[in-house]
């Protein structure tokens, strides 16, 4: 589907208000479709085992998108899609997209349910707050991890020159440029100068300023574009999209279905999630990232998010060639065992269901640089091991992991963890003995539960 058609509809579509769109269109239609699709969250089955339920979910999501379209909050107009446009686009998807250059050329693939192919690992700081002094080393340590295929969201510079950055300001454009420069510098120092960098400088529109074939993010690097939950876009998101498409960059679409939000409970939100994945693809997304968020708990490893991620990924995997990845945000913070147990549960539930992997990150970091490359190594190892088990075993392990941390999901009291600066030796870029011991403890636990780690 041509982008110009979408831009045209965002100017000429039917006028409505945001409230009308969300309440009358999205919520009402979703509630009805959820009843019709007969989906039911079951706390004992966090990894979906029912193919027919996944297929019904796909049809419900497709139907929702046809009925509601996308809302452009800036022009207040609805962008609608016809059945034919939708089906034609889904029919001709390539099922794979290549990113990066040279030795670092990497193909991201559509995966099936219980697929034996390894997932692609989008691993990195995942836009946690980062200070300028640590930025390059932090990312270099990630790029040194061989299991990470694509450096993921190099970090959120919130302060520069001693001043907090106002989005859209000149200072924020300077920060976006530095983001591109520092990220490239980091992969070069790690000996992977052509490593693909999934970029999202988080500075509103001017994040496009981090683009440069010479020193920044290249046209072979995936660039992020976020849908506003649920099923909305605005001028900023569309502008980024137009620009990234014009330079030929692979488009990393992402969105956050909010369980308890306008889609209702986990069943309804699963439908809005499928609709959003299809919408993202119609907008030209090459891969689509789902962040299964929860309105009360604000983390993605609670039982509703685990189930939603599993069934939504299966619905997409079974019924299309769309390429999906799942983001992982946790209550426990890096440095704690809980961090590892949480992201492992979500990684297993998602990867077995056909997803690639993005993350992990604490949902609420407590300071700058609160993430860990070593934990990302474990994240990748868990994803690989998941390709050797089936859904029944996956469910068993996910339930056991969830039992361990379920009472500690409150962000106010969840483990406070440590920062990269505390977990790593900044001279050698090696993890501390203590941190390495946590990694081994988590591995032992996962092996004991029957996850066949290398």
């Amino acid at each position: 589907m041509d982008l110009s058609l979408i831009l045209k509809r965002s100017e000429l579509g039917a006028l409505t208000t945001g409230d009308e769109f969300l309440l009358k269109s999205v919520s009402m239609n979703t509630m009805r479709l959820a009843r019709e699709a007969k989906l039911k969250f079951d706390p004992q089955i966090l990894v979906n085992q029912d193919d027919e339920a996944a297929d019904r979910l796909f049809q419900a999501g497709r139907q929702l998108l046809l009925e509601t379209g996308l809302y452009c909050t800036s022009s207040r107009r609805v962008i609608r899609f016809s059945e034919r446009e939708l089906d034609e686009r889904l029919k001709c998807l390539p099922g794979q997209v290549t990113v990066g250059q040279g030795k670092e050329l990497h193909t991201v693939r559509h995966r099936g349910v219980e697929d034996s192919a390894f997932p692609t690992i989008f691993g990195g700081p995942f836009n946690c707050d980062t200070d300028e002094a640590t930025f390059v080393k932090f990312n270099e340590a990630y790029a040194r991890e061989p299991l990470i295929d694509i450096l993921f969201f190099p970090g959120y510079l919130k302060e520069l020159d001693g001043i907090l950055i106002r989005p859209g300001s000149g200072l924020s454009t300077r920060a976006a440029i530095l983001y591109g420069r520092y990220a490239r510098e980091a992969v070069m120092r790690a000996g992977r100068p052509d490593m693909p960098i999934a970029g999202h400088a988080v500075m509103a529109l001017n994040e496009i300023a981090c683009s440069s074939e010479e020193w920044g993010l290249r046209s072979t690097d995936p660039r992020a574009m976020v849908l506003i939950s649920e099923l909305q876009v605005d001028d900023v998101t569309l502008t980024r999209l137009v620009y990234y498409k014009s330079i030929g960059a692979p488009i990393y679409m992402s969105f956050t279905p909010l369980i308890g939000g306008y889609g209702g409970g986990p069943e309804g939100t699963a439908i809005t999630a499928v609709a959003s994945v299809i919408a993202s693809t119609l907008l030209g997304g090459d891969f689509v990232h789902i962040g299964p968020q929860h309105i009360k708990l604000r983390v993605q490893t609670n039982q509703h998010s685990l189930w939603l991620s599993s069934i939504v990924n299966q619905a997409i995997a079974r019924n299309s060639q769309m390429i999906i990845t799942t983001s992982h945000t946790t209550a426990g913070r890096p440095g704690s065992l809980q961090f590892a147990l949480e992201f492992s549960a979500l990684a297993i539930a998602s990867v077995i269901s056909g997803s690639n992997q993005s993350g992990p990150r604490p949902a609420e970091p407590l300071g700058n640089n609160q993430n860990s490359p070593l934990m990302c190594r474990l994240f990748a190892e868990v994803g690989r091991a998941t390709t050797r088990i089936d859904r029944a075993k996956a469910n068993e392990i996910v339930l056991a992991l969830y039992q361990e941390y379920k009472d500690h999901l409150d962000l106010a009291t969840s483990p406070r963890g440590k920062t990269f600066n505390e977990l790593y030796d900044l001279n050698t870029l090696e993890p501390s003995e203590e941190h390495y011991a946590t990694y081994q403890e988590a591995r032992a636990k996962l092996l004991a539960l029957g996850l066949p780690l290398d």
Partner: protein
Amino acid sequence: MSNESEIFQKLAQSIWDFDPDAAAAAAKEALAAGIAPARAVEEGFSPAIRELGDKFDRMEVFLPELVMAAGAMKAGVNVFEEAMKKAGGSLANKGVVVLGTVEGDIHDIGKTIVGAMLSSAGYKVVDLGVEISVPRFLEAADEAKADIIAASALLSTTMLRQKDLVEFLTSRGKKEKYIVIVGGAPVTQEWADKIGADAYARDAQQAIKVLDGLMATRRA
């Protein structure tokens, strides 16, 4: 007085049905039956909306129900307000809140929940929406004769606009006139203290508690 309890029932049912027309009709019926508006709100609308708020807390109902119920209640309360105005009075509320998400920030879900819960707790809420500039907050507060300005920020970068808000109010000599409450995921009590905001709340329930306290001392 079975008629009265029937009317209270209708008022409550309109909330359960998320039906603004039914809420307005029931409110008119209450007026015609000579029920004092404050009582109609307290005994008709409030129990229903409180129960819904509790259900939302337990994740038994979700955002759409909460927003639609608050919308229905608003339609009913409008009828009472009109009637009181005609009679030269006004409908008692716990306070008038001007609420919005700060400039540069489009996160509106938390703010919408806070608005819905505050109005169900008896506050009159003017929801300005998202991307609200500092001067606009003040303009709207003056216009609505507000007691409270509530500013939401979800990004660590847009939290700065909450600081600007307090600074701006101070520079206009309006700081004492309004209670400023701030919130949003990255916002903390320490931040609120640092910028000189009057209050902070972690969620909507706490916001009600904190504001109830501050309004009580203000009105005393």
